[in-house]
């Protein structure tokens, strides 16, 4: 394995070191098509400079025409950007979002199933790039809200028209946002938490 000497590893900056009480973590995944601003949103609310983790997925060759009897494998590296918000001395929120290759994230064991919920970020100029991820969240029963990233030159559509085009149930919250702004991205996360709260059944 090619590994740098441990002396050269750069860890968190001193101001990014978590207190020893930080023992409970939750995660939220930000999805959407290519170029809708997912990484921008992660960066705008994160307390740390966004980091990148990756994983290698392999596929055993199936139905390959010219390689009958020869086992082939295709490897794909899936990268994921993430940020962090310390909610209290104990509770830490991690936000995951990534450029491209979204169909592969759904293979990342537990990424969605373990998440509290998801934010689907959309660009009104290219709604269709988000269709597939919304369908996949629905199939897996992952609760989500839809945030409309407001690009200056994007046409403004009434929320109800967008809801129809995306075929979203009435109860799924939709919110306008500017992913570059911390307060706006924070409001999107608040909208998701309120929605999850409304889905929760109060304890008797």
């Amino acid at each position, binding site marked *: 394995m090619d590994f740098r000497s*441990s002396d050269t590893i750069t860890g968190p900056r001193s101001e990014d070191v978590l207190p020893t009480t930080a023992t409970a973590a*939750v995660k939220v995944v930000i999805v959407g098509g290519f170029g809708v601003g997912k990484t921008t949103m992660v960066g705008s609310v994160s307390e740390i400079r966004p980091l990148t983790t990756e994983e*290698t997925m392999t596929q055993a060759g199936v139905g390959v025409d010219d390689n009958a009897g020869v086992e082939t494998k295709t490897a794909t590296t899936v990268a994921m950007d993430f940020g962090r918000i310390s909610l*209290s001395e104990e509770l*830490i929120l991690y936000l995951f979002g990534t450029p491209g290759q979204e169909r592969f994230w759904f293979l990342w064991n537990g990424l969605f199933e*373990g998440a509290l919920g998801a934010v689907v970020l959309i660009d009104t100029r290219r709604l269709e790039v988000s269709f597939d991820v919304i369908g996949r969240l*629905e*199939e897996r029963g992952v609760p989500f809200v839809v945030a409309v990233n407001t690009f200056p030159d994007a046409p403004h559509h009434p929320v109800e028209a967008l809801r129809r085009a995306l*075929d979203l149930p009435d109860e799924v919250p939709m919110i306008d946002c500017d992913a570059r702004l911390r307060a706006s991205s924070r409001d999107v996360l608040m909208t998701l*938490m309120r929605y999850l709260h409304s889905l929760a059944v109060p304890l008797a």
Partner: protein
Amino acid sequence: MSGPRRERRKADPDLHDPERLYVITGDLDDSERSALDLVTMVVAQAEPSPTFQPEQAAILRLCQAPLSVAEISAYLSLPFSVVTSLLSDLLATELIESRAPIVRATLPDRSLLEAVMHGLQKL
């Protein structure tokens, strides 16, 4: 508005899709892999010493304060499955401790969500 329209999908309990053919590379079996999440928090229980392998020493150095598996993977520039394999060895020898994340339950926990909202309001 005109343009393409999406069609709603139903939740599928027996999700069957061709991309399931892809699997995460590595030698861990499912039980070991599921034990460590991207946001499992890890804390070192020992100081690194020259007797450790460089990767293990680097992890112990990074985790003197709590750190998620995702952050360890990022700082070491190693894939997630490689890091979980290294961490499993360190867990087995009790050189690190891990704390599993709080995951979404069938019935979400309102007090947890309230704690998240309270934290977000301070941003």
